[in-house]
């Protein structure tokens, strides 16, 4: 049963600390999305990769956020330094052909910055 795996599921950290969230996309999918979900802003697209290359990260605060795909089986989203306003649920999704087909979502990482 192929699925997108995100770790950790929950993370509580202190303001100023570095946070790394990981995502294992479905094998064979060439597209990876990172979204942030909050009550106020809904689902915001942070970054979008195709074939491991970043296509769009315009939704991501560049001063503290970074997204990478070191290899086809791992995508990472880092926040350094973290701030309380970064508290949200972060979702990774993968797809076989970008937005042209359905995206498969992981269960999310619930981040709380205190």
């Amino acid at each position: 049963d192929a699925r997108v795996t995100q770790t950790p599921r929950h993370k509580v950290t202190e303001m100023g600390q570095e946070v790394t969230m990981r995502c294992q996309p479905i094998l064979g999918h060439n597209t990876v999305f990172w979204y942030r979900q909050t009550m106020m802003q809904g689902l915001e697209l942070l970054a979008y990769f195709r074939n491991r290359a970043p296509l769009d990260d315009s939704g991501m605060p560049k001063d503290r956020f970074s997204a990478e795909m070191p290899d086809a089986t791992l995508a990472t989203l880092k926040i350094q330094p973290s701030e309380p306003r970064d508290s949200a649920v972060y979702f990774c999704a993968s797809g076989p052909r970008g937005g042209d087909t359905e995206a498969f979502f992981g269960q999310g990482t619930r981040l709380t910055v205190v």
Partner: protein
Amino acid sequence: SQQGEEDPQALSIQEGENATMNCSYKTSINNLQWYRQNSGRGLVHLILIRSNEREKHSGRLRVTLDTSKKSSSLLITASRAADTASYFCATDDHNQGGKLIFGQGTELSVKP
């Protein structure tokens, strides 16, 4: 940035009734998708309708697309308590190479 706007924001119905949710968007699209999210879980894809299609069915789901009005609707027939969830539309912007942008969602509550 948000592309789709769902309407209503919240909907409460009785089991057995039909539920209709609407989505409006701003730009030219390749396709429009509907997703469902149960509380505390990831989103699950329901149905995709391409820009050259007007209507699509999947089980109890019926989706329509009107590209001239830049709007779509999702109809769930004979609703069940298990349909209680948030429903989101997402658009694949024609000019943005596969970027999938979500609306704010409709929170559906189906009472037994």
